[in-house]
């Protein structure tokens, strides 16, 4: 509860700061301090020290899983603001508003990690999405940004319409919005009620697949991620996407995990996973722009996160949190370096190791983590995902498919490493301050640390 209320309150506070403060730099410092307070408040909440006692009548359910995800999301945002805060200031003239919107997105994220009612699911998704439409279009003079914003908005609103239809039909079938009551709804597959419910759940599945950009509902992702200002792509592709998965997995745990009955849900997920991995990985191979390659790679990573929906056991819950942390931190790092590059095509990275050895080395760690090489956080994230599916005993073939596509992903991540280390060139970068350098080095160290001791995160789930 702390995180939900404080993030909204900090958003309003930043709005007031935009009137009172004209110094752009101080806004960034206020935002990072507010994020730190938010993180501490959320951790305190995890151990029972809640500041606000509000009876939500079962609409929100706070558990360790959601709390830990909140901590990961807020912590990643903190890292994000520290590393790329200066670029946020350069995007446009209304600096404070960007931080305001980031806080409002966090409010939606924290709502999504604790919803227990279809109404709060809807509100969480919307509170998270609407500020993002604005952030996507924040580069107002840039036509690509405009078009990305329009496309994202229309696709987002469309998928919200599908989600609402799903909620309405589920309500028609079960007579309640409460997830607990939906779960215990008698499992009889006959008559109008069950027909409505199944149809509603299918609509919900499609709309969530839109939100997490799982194939075949991924087509908006590359254009939007490519067109949005790079700093905000970084935010969209990491924290927001992970929050979408948390919402998805909570929804699936309710009812969409049965294999008996009319719909074989696990088979649907298996098809989604194979399609997402195929589209994401194969298309990423052919991209010449690193930013667009990262957009497709985020689709491919979504395919791996979808593995947790099939298994839904303790390993899956641990794995999705580890994946959220590993993927968010690595992608934030890559984008932090990407926004410093003048040319974001693959050629732009040629010879970076000669001119900026620290950036090249850390970028390599981030890329290795995304491709899942051992000793980085990404390895254990992928390992947990696959192990969770193996533990269920069925769908062993899916694990083999996953490993094969992980091997494909190594190819396009290594192309960037190859460009940095083995090609001649004179890459143009913005001015790199020493503090930025130490920041990315610390982030890379954190990723390696998580790769050796993944329990640093997972212990929070139990102790």
């Amino acid at each position, binding site marked *: 509860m702390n995180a939900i209320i404080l993030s909204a309150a900090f958003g309003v506070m930043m709005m007031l700061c935009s009137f009172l403060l004209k110094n752009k730099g101080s806004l960034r410092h206020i935002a990072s301090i507010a994020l730190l307070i938010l993180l501490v408040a959320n951790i305190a909440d995890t151990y029972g020290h809640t500041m606000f006692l509000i009876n939500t009548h079962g609409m929100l359910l706070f558990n360790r899983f959601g709390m830990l995800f909140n901590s990961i999301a807020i912590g990643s945002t903190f890292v994000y603001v520290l590393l790329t805060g200066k670029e946020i200031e350069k995007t446009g003239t209304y600096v404070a508003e960007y931080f305001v919107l980031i806080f409002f997105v966090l409010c939606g994220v924290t709502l999504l990690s604790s919803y227990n009612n279809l109404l709060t699911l809807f*509100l969480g998704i919307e509170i998270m999405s609407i500020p993002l439409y604005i952030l996507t279009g924040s580069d107002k003079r840039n036509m690509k940004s405009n078009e990305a914003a329009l496309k994202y908005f229309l696709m987002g609103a469309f998928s919200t319409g599908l989600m*609402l*239809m799903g*909620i309405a039909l589920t*309500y*028609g079938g079960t*007579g309640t919005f409460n997830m607990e009551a939906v779960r215990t709804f008698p499992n009889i597959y006959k008559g109008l009620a069950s027909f409505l419910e199944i149809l509603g759940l299918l609509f919900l599945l499609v709309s969530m697949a839109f939100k997490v950009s799982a194939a075949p509902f991924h087509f908006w992702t590359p254009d939007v991620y490519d067109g949005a200002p790079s700093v905000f792509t970084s935010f969209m592709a990491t924290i927001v996407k992970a929050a979408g998965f948390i919402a998805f997995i909570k929804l699936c745990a309710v009812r969409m995990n049965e294999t008996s009955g009319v719909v074989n849900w696990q088979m649907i997920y298996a098809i989604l996973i194979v399609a997402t991995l195929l589209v994401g990985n194969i298309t990423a191979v052919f991209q010449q722009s690193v930013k667009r390659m990262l957009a497709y790679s985020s689709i491919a990573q979504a395919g791996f996160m979808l593995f947790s929906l099939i298994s839904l056991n303790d390993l899956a819950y641990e794995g999705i949190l580890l994946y959220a942390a590993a993927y968010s931190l690595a992608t934030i790092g890559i984008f932090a370096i990407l926004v410093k590059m003048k040319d974001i095509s693959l050629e732009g990275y040629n010879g970076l190791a000669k001119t900026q050895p620290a950036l090249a080395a850390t970028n390599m760690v981030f890329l290795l983590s995304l491709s899942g090489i051992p000793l980085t956080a990404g390895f254990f994230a992928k390992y947990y995902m696959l192990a969770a599916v193996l533990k269920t005993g069925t769908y062993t073939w899916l694990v083999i498919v996953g490993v094969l596509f992980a091997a494909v992903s190594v190819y396009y991540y290594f192309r960037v490493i190859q460009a940095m280390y083995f090609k001649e060139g004179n890459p143009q970068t913005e001015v790199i301050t020493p503090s930025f350098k130490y920041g990315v080095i610390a982030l890379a160290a954190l990723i390696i640390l998580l790769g050796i001791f993944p329990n640093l995160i997972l212990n929070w789930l139990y102790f």
Partner: protein
Amino acid sequence: MPIQYYIALASCLFCIGVAGVLIRRNAIIVFMCIELMLNAVNLLLVAFSKMHYANAVTSDAKTIVGTDAQLFVFFIMVVAAAEVSVGLAIIVMMYRNIHSVDINFLNRLKN
């Protein structure tokens, strides 16, 4: 009236909305079709609310079953209004730059 009539009407409206989103190329009209989808959902929710109430009231005269769906409708309206304000702002911003609200301009992004 039986609930089937309401379901049929709402699904017709919803399908018109979905078809409009997929077929039309004018951003404003696509946007209106999305609103049509949301309103179809509102209609359906109110109809279901009445249906569940009618089922429950036979056994308990003081039942409040069904009120949650009507509350949900208000939430949808509020969120839709927020979405409209952001969406129209985006469309106006695009119109200022390219003097058109045609979605086909979006295809330029792919090249």
